[in-house]
């Protein structure tokens, strides 16, 4: 039986760090599927209210940087989550006439 060889950046290590990375990727994927794939799916009130504050958006960007420095795969998935969140919120605060 042939073993499937994953590319190195997709390979999951069996130590604690590897399991945590895989867990973070799964959580981010769930968020993408649940919230980001449909514009009509509303974010929680807290997330919508926090978007107005620049310091919150700064923290979100720092989350991307820190997760990217931790693990490239996690960084890419978190960047996707963040992009969908920021773009959805941008759309929500844009007046209808400017869309």
């Amino acid at each position: 039986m042939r073993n499937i060889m994953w590319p190195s950046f997709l390979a999951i290590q069996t130590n604690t760090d590897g399991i945590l990375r895989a867990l973070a990727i799964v959580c981010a994927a769930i968020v993408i599927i649940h919230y980001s794939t449909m514009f009509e799916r509303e974010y929680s009130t807290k997330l919508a209210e926090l978007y107005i504050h620049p310091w919150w958006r700064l923290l979100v960007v720092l989350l991307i940087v820190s997760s990217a420095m931790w693990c490239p795969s996690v960084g890419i998935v978190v960047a996707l989550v963040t992009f969908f969140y920021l773009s959805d919120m941008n759309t929500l605060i844009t007046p209808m006439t400017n869309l």
Partner: protein
Amino acid sequence: MQQQGSQSGGMINPFQGLLASIDSPYKLIYGCVLVLIIIYSSIIPTEYRTFADSLLGRIFGIAIVYGVIESLGWVYGLLTAMAFLLLLHGAPRKPSGAVEGFDGSINTKKAVGKRWFVEKVLGERTRSIETDRVTTSAVDGH
């Protein structure tokens, strides 16, 4: 003679280690600019967004992302791609030169006289009126 106060051996000051691991100032400045663009992407003027959405803008954007990944590293490239996508996402969807709805097809009148109560309440200062007459007709039921 033995020197006093100097440190010898392999011990590295944590602050020195931190400084050694930090990127160059140019990279950090570029990173800060990217972070600011991402944070305040909603207030970037429409002209820049329209240019980013054009053929030339898209080619430039992809080339810049590729150049940044090659020169500064993939983390900066990821931030650049995100800033570019947010810029692109906010571009107006209307084709240039398109006429919106009733623009130009309705005669406008200059608003004269006292402000209406609802205008005072809502703090509106009407300059012109597009429609001040409504034509209705009886319901034609079958």
